[in-house]
Structures are given as C-alpha cells and as structure tokens.
C-alpha cells in the first residue's frame, strides 16, 4: 500500500473523480458488452474481461504521458488503454477487428488494444514477452537522454516466463526507466498462482535484484493504485532504475470467453470476488464521503451509456479489411542500391577475407550512421570483439554506448533489439543473435515475434534489425557449434534471409541489411571467415541488393544452385570439370534465400536443363526442397532430369572429425551427384 497520499476520496478534486468514474464506467460497459458481439457473430471472439482490475488499470493509464512515455499493455488492459487515451470507438474497432482499428486494422486478435502513434504499443499474445520490448525501448530512452518511462503491464502468472526474468535482470543491470506492473488476480486461466511460483506475491521473487524497487498496492482500489503508480513513476525518475508494481486484483469473470470459471471456482469464491468489485467500491466511496449525490452519479452513468451506444454504432458502420490486403506490409521495401543494382562489381583491389569484409563494413556503416548499435554475447571487451573477432575494434572506435555486450540470454538480445528499434525508425540495430547459430533457439520466440511486427501493426512499426549468426560446420564443432538453421527460419514471412559465401557479397549484403528497414537474418558461414577460397576485392561502398543471385561460374551442361559453405566446393567442382573437359557446369550462388531470385534460377534451368541443389543443411526439410519444388512448378518442361539435392545426412553433426565428415556434404558427394546427373 502506498504511503504517498496524493490522491484520496476526501481530497481529490471532484472533476478528477468524475473523469475517473466515467472512464471506469465506459470501460466496464464495453467489458460487459464484449461477449454480445461474439454471440451475435459480429466478432470479438477473444475477450479477456478486466473487471476486478479497475483500480490499477485506471492508474496505469492516468500516469501514462504519451508525449514521453511508452506503454506496453497486455490483452486484459482494456481500461488501461482507455484511461491512457483510446476512445470507446477505438476499443470497439479493435474488438470487432475493423480495418480502421488503430492497433493494426483487424490483423491482430481482438482485445489487443494499441495505438502505436501514441506510444501505446501493439504487442504479442505471447503473454509477458513485451517486457523485453519495454526494456529495449527504455535502453533507447536512456541512450538518447529523453525523459519518460516504459510501462509494461502483465498478469502475475505470465511472470513465470523465463523472458520476464531476463527482462527484469536486464533492466536492473542497465538501470533502465521501466515500470513492470504485475496485475495479480490469482489465476493464469484456471491455474492458481500457487502452481506458478512459491511466493504468493511473485514480485517478491525479485527482492534480491539490485537497482530494483518493488511496490505493492491494492489494484482494486483506485486511490491506492493511483498513489502507488504515481510514486513508482517518481521513483524511476529520481533513482533512474526500474521498479515493479505488484497490484492485487480479483478476476470477477472467467479468464476469457473460452474459459468457464465455474469449473474450478466455487460459489463462495465467486461471491466474494463480486463483493470486491472495484467499481462498486469506488461508487460507494463517492457516496459515503458525500463527494457526489446519487443523482449526480446517475447522470454520469447515463453519459457513459450514451458514449458506449454511440461507439457501438460507429464501430458497426466501420469498414472491414479486404482479402487482397493480406499481402500489404509483410516486410518494408529494402534499401535500393543505385550504384550496384545487380550486386556485381569489377573492383580490382587487394583480395580480402570474408571476416575483413564484415568487420570493415560494420565499421563503415557505424561511421556513416550515428544511430547504429550493435550488441551480443562477447562482442566487446577490450581487445576481444566477438567470438570470431568480427566486431574487433568497434567498441574502441564507437564507444560503449553503441557497441556493448549482452548477457548470455539470447531472447533478451533479440527482444531488446525489437524494443529498442521501436524508439525511432531511424535506428539501425545489429545483433549477434548468439555466439553460434546453434544457440539462437532460445531467441526464437522473439525472432518469430519480430517477424510479425510490420504486418501486425499494418506498417506502423518496422523493426530495423540485422541479426548476425555465425553458422554451419566444417570446424570440428560437434552438435552445438555446427548447426545451420536457415531451413527452419526461412519459411517465416516478415524476414529476409541472406547467406553469403564470398567476402565481397558478405560486405555488400551487410551494408544493404543495415541500411534497410525491416528484419534481416544474416547468416555467416563461419568456416569461410578466414578461408583463402572466398577472398575477394571489395569496393568500399559495395552493396548487394536482396534477392539477387550471382553466377559464380557459367556453364551449359549442368546447373548447381547453392549458397553458404558449399558454394566454394561447387566452384571447385566446376573448375575441375572444366579443366578436365568433363562438363561445363554453371554455379549459381543464391546469396539471398528470402527473397529468392526466382528469375536467376529459372534462367539457369532453362539454359542447362539439369539441376543439382547443394547446401550444407540436411536434405530432409532443407531449403533445397523449396528450390526443387519451385523449379518443378515453374520450369518442369525445361528439365532433362529430375532435380537432385546434396546436403547433410538426417543426423546431428558429430564431434569426431570422422563423424563430421560422414555427415556434412563434401566435394566427393557433390561430384558423384553431379556426375550421375550429367549421365542421366
């Protein structure tokens, strides 16, 4: 309970009390009305009622200042967002998913209220994962030295998610202006909080965290909630570190309209949560302390009723989204290269290693754009610059504010990139998603999340992030230092995937990635970082557009389509066949997997009529399957043989070199497959 008594039933001015009451009444009326839309088959098929959280939700919205703060509400935060400024119309447009819904035009699930234009962020249904976004955004606020707080709101059960601990750990480590609000109604759907964590008040789990203050309040009480949120905001401003506000609430209704709480709550409990209805309590206080007469309250109630009635009418007349709009806002248009439209050059400088291409391009882009940042595990500590030294020298040149280490928490690294990029569209963020691609899996939920942002917000938010991953095997690394994960990630809409093989392409694609809006997965064949086979002169300003494959060898008898670690092997084979007069082999280096250069693929198929798709990843489920299927669909009549594939065996990659060699594709396997195809 807050000891700060700025607000009280006896002393808060009448105008403010009336404003609060009206917000609460409108919110509650819509909360009560929402299930009717489903019953009438109008929409709002997901509704998580807020009744019982009224005090804390009113307070969150009231302390939110859209000029300076950022709000990350969760799916139960209808009153929070109404109190923060969303109108009754906007709530209903979201509920019934109309095209004019300010959260994202009906693309996101109902009850996910947002208004990005006002810093009321559009967040996921993955409950609590926006804690990482709030932390990332607060990091930007701190770095750019702007006032304000990031407010993250969630239910108490979602605090069980590991990423919430990562978020709060990060906010406390970096001393960021974040208020984490836990709205505790005792249940995660039907699961009582005793099954979530040992402390009945989960906020107390964080009592050992440094740089973190924990406030408790009665979320059912308007005044205690207002006083506590006001004190929490003042505390963040004064102490410049995060706070948790744990608000005790009740859930008067079921979790949502797909839940039946009478299956697990008895009549006694249902009665007492009703008795503790915050709205009824507020009304009683207004009368008891003679702040309003019964007639005055009835007048405000009538006004609220009219507001909801008009909003309903407005919502019902609002347009539906069109089916053809689904292709809009999947991913933003990329940076366009005027000088290198095909991603080719004739530069004749000194050949450089792939790792030099990456390092020099990163530095050049950081010099070019002061709003660039990079972080990840191990990226910057004295002379160390990344596990493979790709970022060597960057912190010395650009400082700790722009180049810094992240904790060993991949989801945190990815999620705070998402959050920080929300601060301003001009920011360009590069993250080493993990020390090795093999360790990126914990970040998958944030990666998938980030792939949705642009579409889900109907283009209102573009996460401008390049995720670098040292990928693939051939280094004797075993199961957890050899994975190449494009087969799993490329099918995600909303991302670009590039996988260069040569130094110049690595540099050119990295520049394009950093300059582009949107999310790009930049896969680096780490076995080639220092390989003499992929040395290349690199123009200082080289750029490679997305979706532009490159012919590494021209030929007439067979096309090999490849990328990443296997490209130089295929080139070696083409040279060998040419030198020995065996065959003329064309090698197409895809460079980009998504978008894919379908024109270049079709052109080479039409030219040779025989295709071998080669990649390091497993044949089963590998990206080559998509290439082969596309060739069959689009150029079947040009084929003189079935499309064949070479890749890894359907096993993990063994550590022993004999095992590794048995798993990964090599020149011999490619040669055998190519020979068989040539003889077909």
């Amino acid at each position, binding site marked *: 309970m807050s000891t700060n008594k700025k607000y009280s039933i*006896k002393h808060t001015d009448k105008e403010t009390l009336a404003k609060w009451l009206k917000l609460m009444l409108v919110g509650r009326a819509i909360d009560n009305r929402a299930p009717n839309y489903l019953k009438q088959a109008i929409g709002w098929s997901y509704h998580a009622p807020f009744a019982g959280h009224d005090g804390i939700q009113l307070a969150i919205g009231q302390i939110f200042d859209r000029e300076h703060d950022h709000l990350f509400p969760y799916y139960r935060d209808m009153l929070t967002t109404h109190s923060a400024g969303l109108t009754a119309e906007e709530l209903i447009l979201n509920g019934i998913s109309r095209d004019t819904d300010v959260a994202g035009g009906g693309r996101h699930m109902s009850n996910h209220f947002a208004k990005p234009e006002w810093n009321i962020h559009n967040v996921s249904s993955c409950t609590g994962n926006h804690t990482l976004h709030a932390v990332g955004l607060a990091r930007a606020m701190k770095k750019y030295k702007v006032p304000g707080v990031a407010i993250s709101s969630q239910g108490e059960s979602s605090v069980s998610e590991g990423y919430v601990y990562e978020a709060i750990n990060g906010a406390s480590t970096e001393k960021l202006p974040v208020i984490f609000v836990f709205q505790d109604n005792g249940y995660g759907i039907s699961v009582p909080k005793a099954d979530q964590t040992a402390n*009945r*008040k989960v906020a107390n789990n964080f009592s050992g965290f440094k740089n973190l203050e924990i406030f408790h309040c*009665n979320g059912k009480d308007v005044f205690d909630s207002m006083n506590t949120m006001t004190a929490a905001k003042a505390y963040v401003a004064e102490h410049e570190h995060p706070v948790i506000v744990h608000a*005790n609430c*009740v859930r008067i209704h079921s979790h949502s309209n797909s839940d039946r709480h009478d299956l697990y709550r008895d009549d006694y409990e249902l009665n007492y949560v009703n008795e*503790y209805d915050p709205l009824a309590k507020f009304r009683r*206080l207004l009368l008891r302390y003679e702040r309003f007469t019964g007639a005055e309250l009835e007048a405000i109630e009538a006004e609220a009723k009219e507001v909801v009635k008009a909003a309903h009418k407005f919502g019902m007349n609002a347009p539906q989204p069109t089916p053809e709009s689904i292709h809009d806002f999947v991913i933003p248009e990329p940076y366009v290269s005027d000088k290198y439209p095909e991603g080719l050059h004739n530069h004749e400088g000194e050949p450089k290693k792939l790792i030099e291409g990456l390092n020099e391009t990163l530095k050049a882009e950081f010099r070019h754009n002061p709003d660039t940042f990079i972080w990840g595990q191990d990226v910057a500590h004295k002379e160390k610059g990344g596990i493979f030294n790709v970022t060597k020298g960057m912190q010395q040149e650009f400082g700790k504010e722009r180049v810094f280490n992240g904790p060993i928490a991949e989801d945190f690294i990815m999620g705070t990139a998402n959050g920080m990029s929300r601060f301003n569209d001009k920011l360009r963020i590069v993250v080493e998603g993990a020390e090795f691609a093999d360790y990126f899996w914990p970040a998958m939920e944030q990666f998938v999340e980030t792939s949705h942002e642009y579409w889900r917000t109907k283009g209102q938010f573009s996460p401008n992030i390049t995720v670098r991953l040292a990928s693939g095997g051939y280094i004797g690394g075993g199961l957890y230092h050899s994975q190449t994960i494009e087969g799993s990630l490329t099918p995600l809409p909303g991302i670009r995937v590039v996988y260069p093989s040569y130094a110049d392409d690595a540099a050119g694609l990295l520049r394009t990635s950093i300059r582009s809006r949107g999310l790009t997965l930049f896969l680096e064949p780490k076995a080639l970082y220092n390989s003499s086979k992929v040395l290349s002169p690199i123009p200082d300003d080289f750029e490679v557009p997305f979706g532009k494959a490159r012919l590494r060898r021209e030929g007439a008898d067979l096309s090999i389509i490849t990328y990443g670690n296997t490209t130089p092997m295929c080139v070696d084979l083409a040279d060998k066949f040419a030198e020995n007069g065996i065959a003329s082999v064309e090698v197409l280096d895809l460079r980009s997997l998504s978008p894919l250069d379908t024109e270049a693929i079709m052109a080479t198929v039409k030219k040779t009529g025989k295709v071998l798709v080669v990649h390091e990843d497993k044949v089963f489920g590998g990206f080559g399957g998509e290439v082969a299927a596309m060739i069959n669909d689009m150029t079947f009549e040009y084929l003189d043989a079935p499309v064949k594939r070479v890749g890894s065996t359907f096993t993990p990659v063994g550590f022993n070199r004999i095992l590794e060699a048995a798993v990964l594709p090599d020149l011999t396997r490619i040669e055998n497959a190519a020979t068989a195809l040539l003889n077909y």
Partner: protein
Amino acid sequence: MTKTAIIYSYNTKKTSKIATLIQEGFNDPAIEMINAEEITEDTFLSFDHIIMGVATWFDGELPNFWDEFVPALEEMDLTGKKFALFGLGDQKGYPENFLDGVGIMGEILEEQGAALVGFTSTEGYEFESSRALRNEQFMGLAIDYENQGSMNKQRVAAWIDQLRKEFA
C-alpha cells in the same frame, strides 16, 4: 463512564463467533456490539475502548468494510482511546500474510493517536511473515480457526483477562 464496544462485521461467520465469545467472556452488559458494515464516524468516536474484529483478506488487505472506513479514520483524533484488535488468519494456507489486517489497522489507529492494547505472544504459531508483528508479539489476538480451532476458547479467555487489566 467509560464506553466500550466490540465492532466487527455481522456478515462474517468466524469473526462473529469470536466476537460473541469475547462478549460472553466479559459478561458485561454495558459492552455494546456494533456492526462494522454500518459504522459511522460519530458512533465510532463515541467509545473509549474498542475491541475490533479485523480479518485479513486476499494477500494481506483489510476487508472492504474497514478499508472504506480508513479515509474517515485518517482524519480522526483518537488520542486517549484504547483499541484491542483481534484477527483471524490461516497460518498454513496463507503463511505470508498471517494477521496482516491487524497490523495494517493497528498502524492506522496509532497514527491517529490511539493506544493499542492486547498484544499477545507468537508462541505456538507457525507462519512466515505478518504485518501484525511488533517486538516479537502480535499487535492483538491471533485466531486460527483452520488449524488451531480447539485453542480458540482458551486464547480468547486469556486475552479477556489481559484486556481487563489493560483497559483499566
């Protein structure tokens, strides 16, 4: 003449039983029973000695009927008045908030100048934390129907003996 009241919610079951036990124990017809659900400032201030039944709700909150009276309490001068609080809790079910209501109410009353009496030993109780603790004593009488119901009469009787002296 000193006026004494036992104030508790008539809507409660267990608290009502303890209030009745206390009334019977005092065996003094002058002690008035008052319903906390209907308490007014004037009624409250008309007593010199008040025995209050204060349960703990949820994870350490006052029940609504007391919570909604707090704004009135916070502007009262309770100097010279004596208060004895009894609370009901569940040591095993809610060990983190045992008797919190008594502690919350006790602090509010003291801030307004009241004197608290009827502190009791924590011996025989097992819980994790309580806002009603002061100098290793409860700031009133702790009743645990769920786990130690058989000790209620004995605890109430001892408390009445103590209050007779401390109210004197």
